[in-house]
């Protein structure tokens, strides 16, 4: 039952599937970018700045989703000592860090022409800032603590504690008055984004997912070899 969690499963997958993933990525990314930059219409209020959303929103989703996986993996690793889960989390963290940074930077670049400010400490922006800091802490602890076992234990705890922030980010726009707009795409209601804008958004999200998977497989391969070497 736990066969798929053997380190080897992903290792062999990494060898065979990277090529195909790259081809899918190229096609999806080109389609997504053409739609996002050329064929999608302008927004009635934001005009062309709506195009920033096609990078901003997928990056934010992925940075949240990756932290969710890191948190759950940390929990499994800490409690059940399935140590390969720490390796998953360690391989994913830099990807999440980069996407959270992209989310914050593109968000600021969107905020200036639309809101009139690059940054404001409202609920959403503050909690997202905390996520970036948590990612920084997580990644830097892995590189600063030389002893693998203690680094693993401490980062596991960071991962679990940081998990609290995820629902805060998600629901900040519903709980508090924020400058940031509420969610347009929810599980319960129809999206409030016109379909001509939803298409590039979802395609860009798909491409970013594939890209994350590719980078994850590469990093996982590195980390699992590293883990073996450290063990000896």
């Amino acid at each position, binding site marked *: 039952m736990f066969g798929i969690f053997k380190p080897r499963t992903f290792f062999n997958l990494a060898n065979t599937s990277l090529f195909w993933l790259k081809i899918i990525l190229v096609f999806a990314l080109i389609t997504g970018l053409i739609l996002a930059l050329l064929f999608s219409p302008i927004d009635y209020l934001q005009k062309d700045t709506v195009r920033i959303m096609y990078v901003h929103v997928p990056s934010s989703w992925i940075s949240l989703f990756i932290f969710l996986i890191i948190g759950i993996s940390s929990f499994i690793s800490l409690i*059940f000592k399935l140590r390969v889960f720490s390796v998953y989390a360690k391989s994913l963290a830099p990807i999440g860090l980069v996407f959270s940074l992209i989310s914050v930077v593109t968000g600021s670049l969107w905020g200036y022409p639309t809101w009139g400010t690059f940054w404001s400490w409202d609920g959403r922006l503050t909690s997202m800032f905390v996520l970036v800091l948590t990612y920084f802490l997580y990644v830097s602890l892995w590189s600063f603590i030389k002893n693998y076992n203690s680094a693993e234990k401490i980062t596991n705890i960071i991962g679990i504690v940081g998990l609290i922030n995820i629902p805060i980010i998600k629901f900040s726009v519903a709980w508090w*008055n924020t400058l940031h707009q509420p969610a347009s795409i929810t599980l319960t209601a129809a999206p409030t984004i016109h379909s001509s804008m939803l298409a590039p958004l979802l395609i860009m999200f798909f491409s970013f997912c594939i890209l994350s998977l590719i980078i994850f497989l590469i990093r996982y391969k590195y980390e699992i070899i590293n883990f073996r070497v450290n063990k000896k």
Partner: protein
Amino acid sequence: MIFSKSAKNRLKIFSLIAIAATIIFFFIYNNLQKNVVYFYAPQEIKNLTNTPSNKIRLGGLVKEGSLKKNNNNYVFIITDLKNEIFVEYNGLLPNLFVEGKSAVVEGVLKDKKYFIASVILAKHDENYMPPEVANSLKKNKLGK
């Protein structure tokens, strides 16, 4: 089996910590709810017992037809459709500042009906659509 004796032990300790953390979280959350307000709605200003003298933010809809311009001096009404507050502002307006849409203004309350703003932020809503769709929506609304 992954549920070894020590794993069960760790799980117990972890659950205890998790329960404690949840309680602390809700405690902090409730406090935040009361104290950390990014902006006040007009109704919340009305309910305040005294007029705060420090810088606060006020948010709501810019009342349609209320924006008056005099050089770089603007006066408009922020409303939550029940209460209205006059806002005076001197400076440049952000591009997305439109009547009938939301805005957040930063400044001080002169009294409960009059706000002097030093910063204006346009607030975007969750609707994204091309201009044609927005126009036809507007037409339908007017046709009713």
